[in-house]
């Protein structure tokens, strides 16, 4: 196995270049087979009967009619002993529900499934199942849920978690020392991840071996989940998740429909596909929980932060899930006195799941608007205030230094690219459209780490197989990893075959989430390529009778530096004889005594229509410190996608729960409004800031997916304030909300 701490790259020939994706042709031409496209011989299609009520008990399920319908092969419900699988936990971790549970705690909970010869027959049969429900009192908003006497979502009440308190210093003292104080309450809406490909699994049994194709970010997490629930060893569960159409955090772990597909496939002895419709995807496979945050902050005249205090409540849905938002309050800006207190509320709605930078986006909405308000109070430029409070150590982890921290550089280089000073000074206009600019900073709480094990194999003709467990969830993972192999071995990209995201043929990799795939797996890829290279050089040294130190590999040839001996890889006798050579790489541990974070600063210019409340985002600049850029195109893709999601968070996206019925009113892509091309400005600028972090890992990378979205919405909100003089405390800022704000506030003109 290779030495795991090779020298950092200097000049590179492949890494960093704006190369198109290695699988662009398949994706664009439609030859890529996504799980949703998969058709196996003899495959059955399943459809799910879901509880239409926010809270109900299933009294009776009558399958008689459904079972007689054409094409129907099986049904599965709580009545089947094999489906007696514990699923969600309640507060305190107690088991709260089964795969199909007669106690349905939100609209969309699974009651039964049907497998039939065609999807149409399956759905016709689902509609023919007769269910008797006893409806129960429900609550679908966190304000109502926490009131005394509210209907209980779980037996123990509606508090999803005990108050979680973090504290350092003395906030009261800090507030007393401040020259200016701000205290504001902010709310953010529940968002749905809405990946392009909905949720789908195909399961097939071969004897006692289970094979599952799943639209997943984490095939190994799905594998271990299935193995645990079905009591099988890992070697008998093979999960494949190759082409997949996005997840944004909602597909990190095992979902019910995957287990159900496996059970149905076993019951029918046929392959089974279970796909969720778009509408189903809105109800029961995750969301970014709504949040209420009260933030109090103190600052001295010179811009020194004296205290930050956050109290927050997240709206988790019917089963507890993580909703913490406090990370950036504790860590982003230098502040001696910090206190956060967080709780969560249960409501009768689908459980939350991570969504692109969970917690950090919500927190940014509050924290970055408060920073802005403080800057205004002390008459300081908002960029300068953030720079002033930059800190290079992790304050909540005993002052652990960051291996690199580019927030200051992001703010400065972003401001330069944006033309911040000039744009801020420009007239806001007093006509129909009011103009403003805003900034927001961020960090993201992860930067990857072990484990990851990667194999790079060499064929006798010098072409290469890259074998890694990581999924490519649409971000370009395959491309950047192959580029690393190409960099180290000097082989062109089209001589590299990629095997990935298949638990049967590749080795463990953590789910692709948390912006961790590049900083976790790319160092292992590099280590594997280098391991292979050193073995190759050894073979050449033997053949050329030259010391290995004098050899170099370039363009498929090994030659002696300064000498004349050389040999093409394909002409290595030993390789010809053994026909294969393999290098293995492992992700080395992160350095001890230090930590790492990606940082970013976003800038936005907006226009607000004083008559109609419409907001137009005119342009945005994103300056990102995510370490080395492996591929400028895929990097920019992440940044522009991140900005787009930020626009959605700021302006359009929200789940609407119908309060009287407890049902989701907008569970479709027309009423749940993700931004369109018309909502995203043509002028988006990505400014990579590379701090040359050679300590964190051997590719100098920190991850881009999440820090590319965190501060975008807050930058827009700050620009809105700059344009109008009115604070938008609630996201999203729809025209109806803005009209309300403009009529209450006094618009500067």
């Amino acid at each position, binding site marked *: 196995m290779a030495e795991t701490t090779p020298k950092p790259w200097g000049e590179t020939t492949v890494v960093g270049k704006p190369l198109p994706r290695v699988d662009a042709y398949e994706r664009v031409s439609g030859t890529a087979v996504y799980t949703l496209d998969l058709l196996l011989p003899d495959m059955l299609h399943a*459809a799910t009967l879901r509880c*239409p009520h926010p809270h109900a008990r299933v009294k009776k399920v009558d399958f008689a009619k459904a079972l007689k319908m054409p094409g129907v092969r099986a049904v599965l419900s709580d009545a089947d002993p094999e489906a007696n699988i514990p699923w969600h936990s309640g507060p305190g971790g107690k088991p709260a529900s089964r795969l199909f549970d007669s106690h349905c705690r939100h609209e969309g909970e699974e009651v039964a499934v049907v497998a039939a010869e065609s*999807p*149409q027959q399956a*759905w*016709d049969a689902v509609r023919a199942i007769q269910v008797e429900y006893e409806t129960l009192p429900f609550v679908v908003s966190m304000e109502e849920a926490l009131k005394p006497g509210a209907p209980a979502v779980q037996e123990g009440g509606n508090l999803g978690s005990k108050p979680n308190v973090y504290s350092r210093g003395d906030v009261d003292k800090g507030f007393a020392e401040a020259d200016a104080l701000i205290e504001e309450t902010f709310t953010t809406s529940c968002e749905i991840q809405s990946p392009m490909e909905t949720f789908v699994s195909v399961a097939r049994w071969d004897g006692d071996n289970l094979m599952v194709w799943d639209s997943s970010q984490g095939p190994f997490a799905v594998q271990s989940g299935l193995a645990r629930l079905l009591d099988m060893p890992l070697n008998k569960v093979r999960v494949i998740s190759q082409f997949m159409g996005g997840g944004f955090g909602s597909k990190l772990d095992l979902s019910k429909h995957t287990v159900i597909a496996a059970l149905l496939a076993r019951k029918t002895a046929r392959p089974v596909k279970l796909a969720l*419709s778009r509408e189903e995807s809105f109800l029961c496979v995750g969301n970014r929980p709504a949040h209420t945050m009260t933030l109090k902050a103190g600052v001295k005249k010179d811009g020194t932060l004296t205290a930050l205090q956050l109290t927050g409540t997240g709206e988790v849905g019917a089963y507890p899930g993580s909703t913490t938002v406090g990370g950036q309050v504790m860590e982003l800006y230098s502040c001696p006195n910090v206190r956060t207190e967080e709780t969560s509320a249960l409501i009768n709605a689908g459980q939350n799941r991570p969504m692109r930078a969970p917690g950090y986006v919500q927190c940014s909405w509050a924290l970055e608007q408060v920073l802005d308000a403080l800057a205004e109070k002390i008459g300081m430029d908002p960029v300068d205030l953030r720079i002033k409070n930059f800190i290079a150590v992790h304050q909540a982890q005993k002052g652990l230094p960051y291996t690199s921290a580019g927030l200051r550089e992001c703010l400065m280089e972003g401001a330069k690219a944006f033309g911040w000073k000039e744009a801020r000074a420009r007239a806001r206009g007093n006509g*129909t459209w009011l103009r403003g600019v805003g900034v927001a900073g961020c960090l993201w709480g992860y930067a990857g780490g072990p484990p990851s094990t990667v194999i790079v194999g060499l064929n006798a003709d010098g072409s290469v197989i890259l074998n890694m467990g990581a999924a490519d969830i649409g971000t370009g993972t395959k491309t950047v990893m192959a580029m690393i192999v190409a960099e180290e071995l000097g082989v062109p990209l089209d001589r590299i075959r990629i095997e990935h995201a298949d638990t049967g043929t590749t080795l463990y990799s953590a789910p692709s989430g948390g912006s961790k795939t590049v900083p976790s797996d790319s160092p292992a890829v590099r280590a594997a390529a280098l391991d292979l290279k050193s073995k190759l050089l050894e073979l050449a040294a033997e053949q050329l009778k030259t010391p290995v130190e004098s050899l170099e590999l370039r363009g498929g040839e090994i030659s002696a530096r300064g000498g004349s001996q050389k040999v093409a890889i394909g002409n290595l006798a030993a390789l010809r004889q053994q026909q294969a050579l393999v290098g293995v790489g492992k992700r080395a541990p992160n350095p001890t005594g230090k930590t790492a974070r990606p940082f970013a600063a976003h800038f936005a210019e907006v226009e607000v*229509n*004083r*008559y*109609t*409340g*419409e907001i137009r985002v005119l342009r945005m600049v994103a300056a990102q410190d995510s370490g080395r850029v492996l591929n400028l195109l895929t990097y920019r893709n992440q940044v522009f996608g991140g900005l787009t999601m930020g626009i959605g968070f700021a*302006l*359009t996206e929200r789940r*609407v*729960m*119908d*309060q*009287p*019925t407890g*049902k989701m*009113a*907008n*569970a*479709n892509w*027309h*009423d749940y*409004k993700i*931004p*369109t*091309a*018309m*909502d995203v400005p043509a002028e988006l600028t990505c400014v990579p800031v590379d701090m040359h972090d050679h300590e964190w890992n051997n590719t100098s990378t920190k991850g881009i997916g999440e820090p590319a979205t965190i501060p975008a919405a807050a930058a827009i909100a700050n620009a809105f304030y700059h344009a109008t003089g009115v604070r938008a405390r609630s996201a999203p800022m*729809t*025209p*109806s909300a803005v*009209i*309300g704000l403009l*009529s209450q506030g006094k618009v500067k003109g």
Partner: protein
Amino acid sequence: MLRAFAYQKPASVKAAAQAAARPGAHILAGGTDLLGCLRDGVFTADSVVSLSGLPALKGISANPRGGLRIGALTTLADVAGDARVQESYPVLAQAAASAASPQLRNQGTIGGNLCQRPRCWYYRGDFHCLRKGGDTCFAVGGENEYHCIFGGAPCFIVHPSDTAPALLALDARLSITGPRGSRTIPLSSFFVLPEKNVRAENILAAGEVITEILLGPPQTGARSLYRKVRDRGAFDFALAGAAVVVVMSDGKVSAARIVLSGVAPAPWRVPEAENLLAGRPLDAGAISQAAAAAVKGAFPLSKNEYKIALVRGILEETLASLA
């Protein structure tokens, strides 16, 4: 998932009208609205009668007596892109261009646009509401941010069409063929409010097919525009909008038509506002009086009061831009 239905493709308007008159039959033009309704189970179809065998209903031609005839099967994209429409009836070109998305405008027809079913999320969703034969309008106590502020009760939908207010502001007429013959009616008598009929948005009887839309000759001195405000830049219906036609002579308004979208179960004409403009220059005073008059009598629900300010804002902005 769609349920099974029979499919027919008649070769004449008359045959289409007869086929469509059968119970459980639905007319299919571009299908962008009908198929969505069927897929979502808003209603069911025993048979679907496609108009795609009737090419004569597609296209725009000059009316011999002046004005234009727009075949009911003309796509929204073709209406929006037609040079004559852009030149003489900009309000209509803009309204057609503001609907939906490019793909939907390439497929959706103007006849279908007038007949599309409401977008109320209770009507479209899993709620047995009044319009579907139930006994509750869920909007009354529910999430009514997108519902109407005029003409509601007992059902509070808004009419979804962007072209309807523009056509109404242009005094368009419709040619209709039914199983028992043809008629031509002014568009102003086409739409019905829920108090009259809570199950339908227009007066079409079973089997009646809109064949064409007739526009009179453009008036000299006419200026027009359609302004639509929505939550996002495309693929979205109006929160509120206005189709405005003003005829100017000697610097004064000689005639005005203001028809609002997104605020009522039918395109909503506001005659009081129109009258306030008549005979006056389009100055700040006239504009703000007209804008205020337009929202007189509005009856907001719990979450849509903003529409009052929005309508005023839209009119102040658009009338000023026509001045």
